[in-house]
């Protein structure tokens, strides 16, 4: 994959120098858009859309910091966006070219300001929570009817996870999301920079580590849907997509998602334009297209993630806007915390801890 990506970037870099005005290159998360929207954009604007995907913020960030990625629109998560803005990776948006930005939802804009002051560099694409997806039948078979499927107890209490190991547990390979969850489990501030507390959260993870089959940030969608695994700690919409795929396959697998009741991480994926984007004008057109109320609603209806677009809400299907796992109640919203960007020294502690959690070394 690395090789493929490298050649891809090289090819893109070569082409970028000869960028034509009728091309826009978008780099978004995998399984994150209704492909029909991409065709609609091409039909409406006559601009050729080249759409690539990634499955980790780290990969995107490395491309941004290396410079010359050749992409016009990228979609980093809030805390990563914040760091990339300070590295000078993005250009300020020209809101005159974005009339649809009037559709944005103030509630979300207020929360994304902590990453992007005045929301000058980015607009929200989707947001969601990080929580627990379960194969209901398998988990209740093992832990009984009152299995704590809406609690961090399910994945961080060794007594529970030890039993669940027989049917397979996956966890996100994203230290900046799992470590805050472990901090929440032991009753500490999920956003702490205190290395001792972070190591205490590490002890929780080290205790459950032997029972986790794999740390991975995208494979769990299929694994859950196929019934290969029974528990995944992952992103809300991905787990709901797994639920959907299992329904479509009619394989008898029933998936449920819950944001942990102790408090869950709320993340924001923000669309931004790299400072060296070959075609910023087309990039603005793409952003404006996505912020159209109906287009945004179509995207959410497809991927089961909430969006930051107030005007899109009347167009959302009932199983999206009416599902508290996607649009949480105000009461739950209160309990959601937003992550912060770590300084390099703390980041190193976290990465090292994560390696220890994953490999035991």
């Amino acid at each position, binding site marked *: 994959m690395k090789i493929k990506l490298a050649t891809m970037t090289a090819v893109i870099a070569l082409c970028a120098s000869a960028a034509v005005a009728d091309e826009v290159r978008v780099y978004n998360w995998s399984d994150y858009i209704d492909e029909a929207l991409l065709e609609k954009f091409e039909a409406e604007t006559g601009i050729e859309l080249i759409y690539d995907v990634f499955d980790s913020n780290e990969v995107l960030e490395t491309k941004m910091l290396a410079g010359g990625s050749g992409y016009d629109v990228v979609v980093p998560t809030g805390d990563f966006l914040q760091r990339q803005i300070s590295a000078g990776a993005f250009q300020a948006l020209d809101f005159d070219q974005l009339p649809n930005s009037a559709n944005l939802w103030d509630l979300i804009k207020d929360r994304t300001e902590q990453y992007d002051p005045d929301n000058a560099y980015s607009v929200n694409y989707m947001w969601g929570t990080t929580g627990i997806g379960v194969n209901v039948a398998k988990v209740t078979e093992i832990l009984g009817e009152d299995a704590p499927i809406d609690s961090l107890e399910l994945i961080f209490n060794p007594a529970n996870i030890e039993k669940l190991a027989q049917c*397979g547990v996956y966890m996100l390979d994203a230290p900046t999301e799992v470590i805050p969850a472990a901090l929440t489990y032991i009753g500490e501030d999920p956003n702490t920079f205190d290395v001792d507390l972070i190591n205490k959260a590490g002890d929780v993870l080290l205790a459950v580590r032997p029972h986790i089959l794999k740390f991975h940030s995208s494979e769990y969608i299929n694994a859950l849907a196929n019934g290969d695994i029974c528990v995944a700690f992952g992103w809300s919409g991905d787990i709901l997509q797994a639920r959907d795929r299992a329904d479509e396959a009619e394989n008898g697998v029933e998936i449920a998602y819950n944001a942990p009741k102790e408090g869950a991480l709320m993340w924001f994926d923000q669309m931004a334009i790299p400072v060296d984007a070959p075609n910023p004008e087309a990039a603005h057109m793409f952003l404006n297209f996505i912020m159209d109320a109906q287009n945004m609603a179509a995207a959410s209806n497809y991927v089961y993630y909430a969006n930051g677009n107030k005007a899109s809400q009347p167009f959302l299907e009932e199983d999206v806007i009416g599902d508290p796992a996607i649009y949480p109640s105000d009461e739950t919203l209160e309990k959601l915390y937003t992550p912060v960007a770590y300084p390099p020294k703390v980041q*190193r502690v976290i990465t090292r801890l994560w390696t220890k959690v994953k490999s035991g070394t």
Partner: protein
Amino acid sequence: MKRLLIGVPFVWLFVLFLVPFGIVLKISLSDIDLAIPPYTPTLEVSDGWAGVAAFFSALDLENYIFLTSDDLYWKAYLSSLQIASISTFLTLLVGFPIAYAMARAAEEWRPALLMLVILPFWTSFLIRVYAWIGILSTEGFLNQFLLWTGVISEPLTILNTNTAVYIGIVYTYLPFMILPIYATLEKMDASLLEAAEDLGCSRMQAFWLITLPLARPGVVAGCFLVFIPTLGEFVIPSLLGGSDTLMIGKVLWEEFFNNRDWPVASAVAIILLLILIIPIILFQRNQQINKEAQQ
């Protein structure tokens, strides 16, 4: 003209090996920074001589010293060496009989057999590794087959373990082992074996005394072709391996992508290269001395 031709491999080595090595070495001596690119100092050629001087005065070895402060790196190197050695041995074990059978097959069959070995290369490497996920997963073909035949009653957990990594590596690198061994065995003079049997050797003895020593250059070449890429392998362990499969390729990825620490990542890469190159140079020098001694 002759000199020009000899020069081609040197130009190749210089452009595709020495220059990138120099760049990586340079980054390994600099410091992490939040910028594009994320390290400092960068070489400012536009400042002329002063820029170059400033660049060199700021270089130090702290990234290499850092590598010694954490046992993770040594453990990852050792674990990679172990995985690479075992995989090479397993590939040899599987590859030698195949190459031997191919070389002993009727002459008109050989091109077809050779084709069959090369054929998998026509499919993307990534797709072939993904196919193993489908075969090895708990609900995968292998488990379904074994359950159906009644060999096992509970599905085996193979995917996401080191076993899956070994299977993936042996499968992927098998042609690199078969081809050089086949090439040496095919060239072997069959009359040597006849002579050995005339002189009272059993077929087994003839194999040990004649075939195996003559196949040695092919075996050595095959082992190098498998061992070297396996040591730095990243794709197979990350797709088929479990979270506890510790390999230097993964550590390098984490330094580069999670810590955004290009300098430390480069230092890891330089050490990996040295670990590879020094034994190879020593081995080749040894071979050379042996050869001269024989002559």
